[in-house]
């Protein structure tokens, strides 16, 4: 029996997915030994958060066939919400440092970010995507893509108009001594950011794999007619998907507020990185996006470490070009079947 598993493992290792996952782990471990464990820590934290943004993006692509370029703006909405919710909380904490608000305050800010993100996703669906879908689904991919670009410009400028173009940041979420793991000191905020990302990605994976609604989302992304036939209400799933995707992006924005202060174009960097992830791992492949997020994060961290900070977008972009030339369906294969785009 064990022999059976070994041969299965070897087959997996030879596939694109297995090879790239193992290569990522090996490179991460080797570079950490050579240059110091902080590389591994940075990769894991960046990767965890990137996974949240990228799974939302891939969900929009898989279920709705929308090439979402306004996803970074939901990251921005999340960080903005967290800033305005956390500022009064942090004032209260500085007066009462021992109250339990100091522990759960940041979580409240992140939950608010997720809720506001979900609501703005629903508003976007009701005002922008829903009307377009009802009018015509001809040329859907192109039209919806243009709409998302427009939405992105609109939201960036609305932010600037209403809240100004300055940096709205916080000193930190959790105060206190940094956590020490294997001689590396990680600030509490960074450690918590990773824990939050891991928990959310875990819950999300469970939701998509085992629950009735999660399976319905996957069913719609794989075959929309089949989904209608078995009695799935497509409109309901579309609304659920958009709100979920936007909430994931917003919660990432909220929990990274200590690293990325809120300003109008804060969402562009996570958006581009998430697109690298989605193209690398395969359009619409939800679980592949999680693995892809860590690969892109490692690539970025290594580039900054060995080549220079200015190159952190160049190397991933070059890799994406190679992937598009040699394996256009991505490392983990694409799930997109062209749901609305007949």
């Amino acid at each position: 029996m064990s022999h059976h598993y070994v041969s299965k493992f070897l087959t997996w290792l030879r596939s694109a997915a297995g090879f790239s996952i193992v290569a990522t782990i090996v490179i991460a471990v080797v570079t950490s030994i050579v240059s110091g464990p902080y590389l591994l820590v940075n990769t894991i934290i960046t990767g965890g958060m990137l996974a949240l943004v990228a799974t939302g993006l891939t969900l929009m692509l898989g279920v709705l066939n929308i090439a979402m370029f306004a996803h970074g703006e939901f990251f921005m909405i999340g960080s903005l919400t967290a800033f305005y919710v956390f500022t009064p909380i942090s004032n209260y904490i500085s007066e009462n440092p021992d109250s339990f608000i100091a522990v759960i305050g940041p979580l409240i800010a992140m939950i608010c970010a997720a809720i506001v993100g979900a609501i703005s996703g629903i508003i976007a669906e009701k005002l922008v995507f829903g009307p377009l879908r009802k009018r015509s689904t001809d040329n859907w991919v192109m039209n919806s893509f243009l709409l998302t670009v427009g939405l992105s410009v609109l939201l960036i400028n609305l932010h600037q108009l209403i809240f100004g173009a300055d940096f709205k940041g916080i000193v930190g979420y959790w105060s206190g001594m940094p956590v020490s793991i294997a001689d590396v000191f990680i600030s509490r905020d960074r450690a918590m950011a990773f824990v939050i990302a891991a928990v959310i990605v875990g819950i999300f994976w469970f939701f998509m794999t085992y629950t009735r609604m999660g399976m319905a989302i996957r069913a719609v992304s794989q075959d929309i007619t089949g989904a209608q036939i078995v009695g799935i209400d497509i409109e309901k799933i579309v609304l659920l998907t958009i709100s979920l995707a936007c909430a994931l992006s917003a919660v990432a924005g909220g929990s990274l507020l200590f690293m990325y202060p809120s300003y109008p174009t804060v969402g562009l960097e996570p958006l581009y990185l998430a697109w690298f992830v989605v193209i690398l791992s395969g359009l619409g492949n939800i679980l592949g996006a999680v693995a892809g997020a860590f690969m892109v994060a490692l690539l970025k961290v290594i580039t900054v470490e060995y080549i220079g900070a200015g190159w952190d977008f160049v190397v991933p972009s070059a890799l994406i070009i190679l992937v598009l030339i040699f394996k256009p369906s991505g490392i983990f294969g694409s799930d997109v079947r062209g749901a609305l785009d007949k």
Partner: protein
Amino acid sequence: MLLEVKNLDAGYGYLQILRSVSLNINKGEYVCIVGPNGAGKSTTMKAIAGLISPMGGSIIFNGEEIAGLQTSQITKKGLSFVSEEMNLFVNMSVQENLYMGAYIIKDKKVQKDRLDFVFSLFPRLGERKNQLAGTMSGGERKMLAIGRGMMSDPQLLLVDEPSFGLAPQLVADVFDSLEILRNQGVTILLVEQNVTKTLAVTNRGYILENGKIGLEGKSNDLVNNPHVRKVFLGV
């Protein structure tokens, strides 16, 4: 009467295919629609299942008008459609596909009972329950599509061209599985190109030609009808 279609007009965009099609099915019957390619058989099925909305006429299922409803609402009323393309969820396992077929049933225990029932009908699906639907053979996928259609415990099963693209031996298997369902008391509306075989197993049939019902009657009578023999059977 379980299903009554009256003067149904339907088509795609501006192209009208069906012209005043009327048909009916009683509970427990095994009825077929046969006809040449392009006659509108699949269009009829899609219109009944709600995948295209009718241009005119009425579709009454269990005493209720269902013309113009969403497919998901029609499924909830107890009508199950097994399409020609099968529309399986290819990256899900056989068992997941079947559970999706019971999407409208909320009770976990009833879902499990339905699953056991479908596995008892098609033991092959039980043996392959963890295999991805996309990696199964053509015949097995047809079986899975029919099994998925049965998961919601429908009062009426619409089956569109189950023999399409299958090797002769597999066609026989598919007809056998429909026979099993019929013996279980399931009401079936079957669309087929394989006229001889279909008329041999069904109770009643409708002949659809150029978007209109040309003939209707007991399957035995249709087989012996001179027009049918000339056009479809080449005798």
